[in-house]
């Protein structure tokens, strides 16, 4: 039997190099766009974590003399009509966006995975009932669902996360269910049964890991839409309460009134949202490839 020495071939290509930096270097060469995404996401996360160090001003303190100050000088990115420093507000806004995006995506993702996996693996009446429930939820637009949720829960960070997470559940459940349906008929699942493995263990060990690739792509896309939904909710007064800086609210409340007179109030929060969403999408695409062992060599 011909023995192909994959290890040697891989070592030559640089995949088996040890050490974090050389691995990172290898991945950067292989997925340059993913690296860009990773840098953007890293910047976003670092900004959120060290907001108090980075921001030159208090994001909440007002200054009537600096109202609508143009970018430059003391206020690098200008100031809003209450004279609050835009740069500081955007830096602090990263905290809220990060919390909402990660919190809502994780919460919605976990609920969706559990529901989708049970629905697809057990099947029968449970599947029928949960799928009809998911249909009902999906027939309402994400924002409308989130609005209803947020309105009934009241404005706060936790409630915003919940309000955005619940409408994300059906799409995750759908994706997981459909892969589960095809996976549960695969011979390797039957092989697991033949060695006497329990059904729950089969679902978690053999089915779930094989549904992850589309989930990562979906999850990163949802990071972006969670940020956008939070923006919309905050604009309507149902998301993050004033005066805490939320990119979405900064963007939407200035858009109508100040877009001509003080465009920086619209541009900079918009750039922050776009870069973050763009970064998560690029990273998600690369992660999908990296996490799939079939694409690794």
């Amino acid at each position, binding site marked *: *039997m011909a023995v192909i020495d994959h290890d040697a071939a891989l070592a030559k290509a640089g995949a088996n190099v040890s050490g974090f930096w050389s691995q990172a270097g290898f991945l950067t060469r292989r997925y340059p766009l993913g690296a860009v995404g990773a840098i953007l996401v890293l910047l976003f996360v670092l900004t959120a974590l060290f907001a108090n160090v980075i921001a030159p001003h208090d994001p909440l303190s007002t200054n009537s003399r600096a109202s609508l100050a143009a970018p430059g000088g003391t206020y690098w990115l200008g100031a809003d009509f209450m004279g609050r420093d835009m740069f500081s507000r955007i830096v602090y806004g990263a905290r809220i966006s990060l919390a909402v995006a990660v919190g809502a995506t994780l919460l919605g993702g976990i609920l969706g995975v559990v529901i989708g996996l049970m629905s697809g693996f057990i099947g029968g009446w449970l599947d029928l009932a949960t799928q009809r429930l998911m249909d009902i939820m999906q027939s309402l637009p994400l924002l409308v669902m989130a609005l209803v949720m947020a309105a009934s829960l009241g404005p706060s960070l936790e409630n915003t996360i919940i309000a955005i997470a619940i409408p994300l559940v059906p799409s995750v459940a759908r994706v997981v269910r459909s892969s589960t349906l095809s996976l549960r008929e695969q011979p390797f699942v*039957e*092989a697991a049964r*033949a060695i*006497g493995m329990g059904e729950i*263990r089969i679902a978690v060990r053999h089915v779930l890991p094989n549904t992850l690739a589309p989930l990562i792509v979906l999850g990163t896309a949802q990071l972006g839409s969670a940020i956008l939904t939070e923006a919309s909710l905050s604009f309507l007064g149902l998301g993050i309460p004033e005066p805490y800086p939320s990119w979405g609210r900064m963007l939407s409340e200035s858009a109508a009134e100040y877009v001509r007179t003080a465009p920086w109030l619209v541009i900079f929060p918009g750039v922050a949202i776009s870069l973050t969403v763009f970064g998560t999408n690029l990273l998600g695409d690369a992660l999908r490839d990296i996490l799939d*062992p*079939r694409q690794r060599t």
Partner: protein
Amino acid sequence: MVSANPPVIEVKDLKKHFPVKKGLLRRTVGQVYAVDGVTFTVGAGETLGLVGESGCGKTTAGRAAMRLVEPTSGSIKVEGKEIMGLSKGELRPYRRQMQIIFQDPFSSLNPRMTAGDIVGEPLLVHGVANAKERQEQVSALFARVGLRPAQMSNYPHQFSGGQRQRIGIARALALGPKLIVGDEPVSALDVSIQAQVINLLMELQAERRLSYLFISHNLAVVEHISHQIAVMYLGRIVEYADTRSIFTNAQHPYTEALLAAVPVPDPAIKRKKIVLQGDVPSPVKPPSGCHFHTRCPYAVARCKVEAPPLREIAPGHQVSCHLR
């Protein structure tokens, strides 16, 4: 069936009917008689070849015998103990006795697990070894089936089809089973690789006194590996005998036709040509009487009304035909 060795598995009158559901209310409107009363025995260290064309129920028979699909009725005795009616938990110790090798070497291995984890999983599930022992046993299994233990950390896609089938064999061997059901284990492989895998299976049989239920449509392969052969047609066994008798003294018209279809690598040899007319009838509505009468060149009136029982016409040679 006459066999010198104590039986590892005795299957009696095994049936598997799949309901056909239709309409909004999913009412059962009919049954697919996939396996319709199959009886066979595999002795220790022996191979029973189960042959037939696709759709005849041989794969379902193999799975039902392991209770991987739940049989509709029948009796399955593993080393004399009845396993029909056992709960999942009670069945677990018997799972160690019976393992399966699949046809498709690609979909039968989880693409997200390393080869070593795949082979070690049975040991993990049954808690028979700690991590270090498991590592050693898996490494030994790899070496035994002709893989390098260094390949344990590779993923299935990094192996060739034949190598993947060897991983499947190693997984089946891990728990030290008595019986291995091979569901077309070499059909998906190149001919040269087929021979290697068949030889490996035969070596393992000699070494570990394994019993095989070898399901295949390839008569040449079955002849090579089997001690006994059962020929299936539409959910029933039509002829059951030792390999020599089947190949030299086939009694059932269907077996004759199957054998006549095997290519002979010598153009000078003149062969009796038997070409069956028509297709295999639907197992949803199997023909009355003898299932084969619609295509049988010798069929008489009686074949239409009365199903022939499987009779012993010579010691160890059973045929289900009115005319023999």
